[in-house]
């Protein structure tokens, strides 16, 4: 079935209001036209969306990975419980540092707290956390009822800072805010930027110092990226926020370049760091061999020293020599296959290159909580109409910090570099998709089912909620949120691990048993006796 027919068929089932809404969230790529997609708008009640909430984006994604802080979730037990160890943001204890990554903290609000307020309980919970753990800092994340009953978590945080002498950050990330996890990213970005980043001493950073922004160390991706960058000679000041610490975060302003992996979740901070401290940001992609090489070359060119450029090429050659053979082997096993990609706010773009390197074409891609700029590129930002849901998320405006603002490269040089690399720029997903492929925002259950049936890809890269729907149809599904508990998938070595996992999933002999033998061949045997007329 053609893509157009397939999308039309999906639309036919929808009630008219749903149809009117959903058709704006999908397109068939046509490079002859300027294509617009609707994104970051409300999901429709009753439509089975994969989206989560602001709390999930704030605590679950951005602040949860910070390992030396105690993250107290103020609310009923569930919200903290579901975000406990489920996102695979790995964190390693260094020396005698504190690491709370395997702990889950909640005020476990009860009915009486809802009726009489939960402030007293929260205050006491903070006190208990300090007495027990003496952490570097504490975060408080609000859940739905907190905002509704009016607990003033900001005031409590301020009081607690005075009482305990450590920083206590309050995040108003109630689940109903915004339209998806994305609102939570923004809320987390604002507070970290306002209250933590830049509070460390301003020092002259090492020459090749970088921050890796929007890298959450899922399956150890951040470690593989760090391995490569360290090998070349970079100093990583802070990874935001995978395996990150409070101390590192405070010093994020002490770097000469910010590289941005996940644009959606962290672009607010990268922009603000540039405005306030003068550190430019470079959009990078450490997923896939070619993209990793491109990223490394861009980084080297930014710093511009021949020694670094040469070292970069040396490392690339060395790394390639180790992976070319196995990658070729897996490519042979996957060549000619097709993929659907439906992941968060970056990976549906990032993984297309890696898939292609092992011979797999992406025929459908979409984000769960991306904005128009993640699809169409940042040039579209001034034209995005903000709806009420987005306007309710406060926007933090920072200004140039005259004392701490510093340009590593002169502006003229920066402008010249912008012609060559995505410095302060992201072109989005659509640009790189082939003509005739489908782009869908906030792909829902019904659309997933219909598209899988019609276009029969060989692999569906999505999350746990879709995985078994796809596999019931005989289509391998690879979780790209949790990597099916494998990884790392980033960088050079990660590419091979990904290729191996995908190849195994597509080629596992287990698929061959779906149809039982008695449904493949006739089992009633008989013979026709001459002279007897069969009836």
């Amino acid at each position, binding site marked *: 079935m053609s893509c157009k027919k397939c999308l039309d068929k999906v639309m036919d089932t929808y009630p008219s209001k749903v149809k009117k809404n959903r058709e704006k969230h999908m397109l068939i790529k046509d490079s002859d036209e300027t294509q617009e997609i609707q994104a970051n708008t409300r999901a429709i009640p009753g439509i089975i969306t994969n989206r989560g909430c602001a709390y999930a984006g704030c605590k679950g994604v951005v602040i949860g990975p910070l390992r030396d802080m105690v993250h107290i979730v103020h609310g009923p037990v569930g919200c903290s419980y579901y975000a406990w160890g489920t996102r695979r943001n790995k964190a390693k204890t260094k020396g005698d540092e504190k690491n709370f990554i395997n702990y889950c903290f909640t005020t476990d609000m009860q009915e009486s707290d809802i009726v009489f307020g939960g402030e007293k309980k929260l205050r006491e919970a903070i006190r208990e956390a300090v007495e027990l753990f003496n952490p570097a800092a504490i975060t408080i994340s609000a859940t*739905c009822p907190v905002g509704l009953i009016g607990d003033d978590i900001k005031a409590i945080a301020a009081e607690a800072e005075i009482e305990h002498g450590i920083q206590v950050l309050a995040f108003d990330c109630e689940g109903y805010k915004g339209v998806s996890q994305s609102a939570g990213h923004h809320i987390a970005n604002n507070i970290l930027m306002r209250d933590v980043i830049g509070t460390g001493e301003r020092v002259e950073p090492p020459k090749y110092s970088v921050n890796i922004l929007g890298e959450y160390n899922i399956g150890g991706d951040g470690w593989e990226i760090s391995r490569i960058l360290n090998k070349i000679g970079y100093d990583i000041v802070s990874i935001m926020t995978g395996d990150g610490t409070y101390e590192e975060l405070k010093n994020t302003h002490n770097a000469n370049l910010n590289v941005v992996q996940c644009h959606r979740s962290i672009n607010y901070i990268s922009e603000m760091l540039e405005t306030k401290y003068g550190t430019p940001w470079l959009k990078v992609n450490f997923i896939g061999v070619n993209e990793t090489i491109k990223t490394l070359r861009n980084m080297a060119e930014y710093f511009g020293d021949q020694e670094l450029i040469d070292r970069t090429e040396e490392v690339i050659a060395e790394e390639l020599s180790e992976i070319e053979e196995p990658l070729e082997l897996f490519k042979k096993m996957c060549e000619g296959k097709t993929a659907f990609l439906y992941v968060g706010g970056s990976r549906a773009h990032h993984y297309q290159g890696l898939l292609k390197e092992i011979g797999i074409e992406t025929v459908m891609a979409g984000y769960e909580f991306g904005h128009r700029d993640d699809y169409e590129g940042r040039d579209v930002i001034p034209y995005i109409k903000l709806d009420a849901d987005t306007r309710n998320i406060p926007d933090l405006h920072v200004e140039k910090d005259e004392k701490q603002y510093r340009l590593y490269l002169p502006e003229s040089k920066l402008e010249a570099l912008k012609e060559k690399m995505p410095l302060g720029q992201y072109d989005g997903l659509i640009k790189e998709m082939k003509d005739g492929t489908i782009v869908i925002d906030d792909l829902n259950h019904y659309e997933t089912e219909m598209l899988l049936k019609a276009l029969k890809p060989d692999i569906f890269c999505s999350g746990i909620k879709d995985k078994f729907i796809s596999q019931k149809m005989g289509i391998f599904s690879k979780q790209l949120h949790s990597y099916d508990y494998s990884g790392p998938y980033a960088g050079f070595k990660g590419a091979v691990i990904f290729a191996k996992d995908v190849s195994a999933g597509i080629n596992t002999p287990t698929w061959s048993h779906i149809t039982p033998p008695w449904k493949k061949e006739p089992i009633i045997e008989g013979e026709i006796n001459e002279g007897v007329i069969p009836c």
Partner: protein
Amino acid sequence: MLNHTPKEIYEKKSLVINPAKTCQPIGAMYAALGIHGCLPHSHGSQGCCSYHRMHLTRHFRDPIVASTSSFTEGASVFGGLSNLKTAITNVFTIYKPEIIAINTTCLSETIGDDVGSIIQDADVPEGKVVIHANTPSYAGSHITGFSNMVKAMVTYLAVADKENKNGKTNIIPGFVNPGDMREIKRIAKLLGVPITMFPDTSGVVDSPMTGKYEMFPRGGATVEDIAAAGKSDLTIALGRFASEAGAYELEKKCKVASSVLKTPIGIEATDALVMELVRATGADVPYELEEERGQLVDIMTDTHYHYHGKKVAVFGDPDIVIALTEFFIGIGMKPIHVLTGTPGQSFELEVNEMLNKAGVEGRVKSGGDLFELHQWIKNEPVDLLVGNTYGKFISKAEDIPLVRIGFPVLDRSVHSYLPVVGYKGAMRVLEMVSNALLDKVDVDASDEDFELVL
């Protein structure tokens, strides 16, 4: 691993660390999946529905589909009426379930949405049904949510008919795996007792791979089955915390007698279920079942030295933990730490009574957390830990083997297909317990003590 948990017991009043429970809606969602053709619906923010689907999917490794009212800030201020009505229309038009089972959340409960009234006003197609349960996340636990949804099934669906009793026995299985539900049905079948099981998630969350995706798989109790539960002679509720409320509601509404038993884990609890079915229906116990029981007793005796006298910490959901504690006492183990996250004093009373009777001195707590359990273990070590996957942090920190029983099990597979209930299930528990202890013996043994036969 969990390096910051001190040995010295710290009495917390407000902070819960490493909870041993989660919130009501996920239990309600699981119960709702036990109705055939049902789409569970979460009336709250999207995140709740997403988290619950995620967690259930990880435990069962099968598609768990549910819809949400997708609350935004506006809905939270003005109420969720419009969202829910829209959702009901969309769900019936697009997904075409037989029934929608709505659970509330802390959000919709706090703002006071009257879901019952909204349903009455909603546009429900002819022949289709919408039910709801109030499941505020700030009271009870996921077990309470399961119980509330089971009760809602009765309230909405069961029909009394004293004149036309159908001679059946209802069984409410509790928050157990589909493998357990199948085993309970098999036992009833062996006894020749016609039953209606509800909820029944077998055939829903353990559906086969056929190359075709069925949004509503074959399994589940039908709406008609649950309606006819009002004509049965008896309801057996397995596990007080998860199943009692549904059975009592059926007694109140339809005058169906009720009997509350333990979740049938272990020989005594299984005996109790078999005896209840025999007493109620006059069924004969067939040799096949007697043989299974005899095999179990044989195994228990033959392998007693693997576990006799071993100290064990048991945690998880109250009905499962109560039954496991009884079983462990019955095979000579010492359950010295017994904890559930679900609140309920009766848990403590019941377990303490069992321990007292057995002469085991132990700590028992309802509404506790795993931080507390860890502190107990640091002060009084155990040989074995039995509970859900979240026990693995303590298991690693203290080098204690963990047997995974209960919900959720996120790091091992196949568990949901195989029973822990019934005589067969008891054999499986014995195998898991023995193997865990013996694996540890092998790993820890010096070369000269490393034995081929154990």
